């Protein structure tokens, strides 16, 4: 229910913002030498001559998976939700979003795996050996990671590893499955994404190192860990079954939320590395006052976050018996 309300609120806000911007997409559509006639026709064609609430109502109607609910024509049936057509190139927004989504998904989920691969071992080890050399190095890394902007890190990585050393490609994206054009397949896919992943993961890796370290340290001091040792459990079992099991519970929730936040962060990384993902699509659409495309990305991102939250809630209830749904 809250998800539905949130969804409505987000889409309305986008509409209102676009309405408030003093730019006319119809004029843009007519090009340099726009006649009044052309603008009027274009405005009608795009639907921007209607009042705001009609535009929103139409948008909403297209989006609903059920159609035929009108008062004088009641014949409910299912249909594919439709996001409308782009103002600028008349492509269906559905196809624009569906083309861009895998790119962003690759970036975000790959990045999440990347940062967890760094944060888990570093966080755990530095918690086990506080004030050790590793711990100190990790703390410096955390400090840099938290204070540096992803664009800066991205450019730095692109310059040194991509441009100077030439180890990794600086731009471009390759499909994971079917080769489109000159490259494709999992290896090329991963190869092209290494730098974006690293950029993207840097901040979160830093945050997670800090969080995991703190959680593990806290769990190590828990009474039930002492109980486990008092039972005669060997140290690896104490770690695995008692410390980590509890310390990583909150990390699961955080991970879900942060992947949502990371969707926003993807915008920077995508523009630095020229990845044709949702972030780049949204920026382009906003620059062209392309309301349907912007709205499409917003709708899609909101849905993703809502879905993600749901999955995390279920997952959490599954691994933490204290909040098990009965």
């Amino acid at each position: 229910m809250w998800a539905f309300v949130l969804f409505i609120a987000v889409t309305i806000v986008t509409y209102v913002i676009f309405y408030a911007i003093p730019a006319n997409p119809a004029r843009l559509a007519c090009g340099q030498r726009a006649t009044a006639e052309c603008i009027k026709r274009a405005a009608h064609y795009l639907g921007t001559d209607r009042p705001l609430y009609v535009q929103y109502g139409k948008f909403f109607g297209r989006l609903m998976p059920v159609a035929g609910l009108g008062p004088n024509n009641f014949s409910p049936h299912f249909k594919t939700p439709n996001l409308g057509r782009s103002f600028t190139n008349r492509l269906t927004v559905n196809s624009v979003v569906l083309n861009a989504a895998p790119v962003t998904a690759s970036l975000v989920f790959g990045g999440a795996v990347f940062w967890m691969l760094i944060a888990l071992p570093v966080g755990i080890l530095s918690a086990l050996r506080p004030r050790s050399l590793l711990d100190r190095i990790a703390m410096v890394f955390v400090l840099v990671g938290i204070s540096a902007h992803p664009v800066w890190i991205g450019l730095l990585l692109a310059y040194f590893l991509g441009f100077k050393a030439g180890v990794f490609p600086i731009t471009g994206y390759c499909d994971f499955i079917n080769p489109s054009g000159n490259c494709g397949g999992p290896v090329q896919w991963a190869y092209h994404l290494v730098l974006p992943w690293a950029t993207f993961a840097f901040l979160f890796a830093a945050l997670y190192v800090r969080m995991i370290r703190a959680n593990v340290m806290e769990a190590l001091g828990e009474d039930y860990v002492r109980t486990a040792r008092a039972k005669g459990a060997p140290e690896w079992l104490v770690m695995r079954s008692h410390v980590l099991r509890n310390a990583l519970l909150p990390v699961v929730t955080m991970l879900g939320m942060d992947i949502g936040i990371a969707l926003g962060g993807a915008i920077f990384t995508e523009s630095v590395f020229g990845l044709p993902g949702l972030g780049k699509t949204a920026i382009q659409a906003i620059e062209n006052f392309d309301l349907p495309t912007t709205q499409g990305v917003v709708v899609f991102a909101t849905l993703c976050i809502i879905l993600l939250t749901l999955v995390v809630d279920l997952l959490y209830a599954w691994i933490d018996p204290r909040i098990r749904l009965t």
Partner: protein
Amino acid sequence: MALLEVTDLKTYFRTDDGVVRAVDGVSFSVDKGQTLGIVGESGSGKSVTCLTIMGLNPKRTAMSSGTAMWKGEDLLTATPKRLREIRGSEIAMIFQDPMTSLNPVHKIGAQLAEAMRLHEDVSKKTARARALELLKAVGIPRAERRLDDYPHQFSGGMRQRVMIAMSLINNPDLLIADEPTTALDVTTQAQILTLIEKLQEEFGSAVIMITHDLGVVAEIADDVVVMYAAEVAEKGGVEQIFKKPHHPYTWGLMGSLPRLDADVERLVQIQGQPPSMLRPPTGCRFHPRCPYVMPICKEVDPALAPVSDDPGHLQSCHLDEETKNREAAKLLAGMMAEAS
């Protein structure tokens, strides 16, 4: 030979503020099947004493010396592997706070079974059956169904019963109970104490009962160690300690035993706070709070010496024996009057 013989045990912790002397030369012994009560105010080093015996202090900051002979083998110099074998199978321990001592993410049946399977090569099924047997023995109603419950589904008293069941699952020779009833309400306290006594008889384990409540000690202990500021103030048989207490600190503890008629003026009350173990007082550590303090108390640390007519009763106080006997008699007479 005593089951456990602790001699001159010391444990110091390195902290940012300096060295904390948590245990500073403690000796006692526990015989097979006997119950030793360790009493003292908060911070007197009772828990650390027992954690040192179990080898459960944080390795990074704790330094220990002395010996703790367990069946002729020194636990302080035992290898970690040997200690793990002993922990949970020969010596088991239960803790003060049952709410936090069980792992919240594992079923209690699994936690009990783990305790058994760590020491015996038995099937999961056997361990589960044994877990059930123990849960019944500690009086958990509908035990079969509760095996698959999680700790948060139990009340505090029930969790402490689960902890007791878990500690006894391998038939230990010694059970260390660190204030097992402090976190519980009064009725549950009594039930848990009775339960420990009953099980002790059944299983034949020796028990070290840590508490700050002399009433608990009077009820279940055979021998008593009174600890003050990381040292032993007085120790002896329970009869001796209660009939002829020889240390002003023990008098204080007895004087502050909870009574129903709280209006009656206390005979002896311990004034002030326990000292910081970063910089313990010179001389007798109790002297800043002692109503009987003499000049010598500030200079010379009294040795733990036997009472003249009873070599099993040791105390560390400079007062002459005549005064002690007189004061103790006065205190006891007062308590009798108060009780009747």
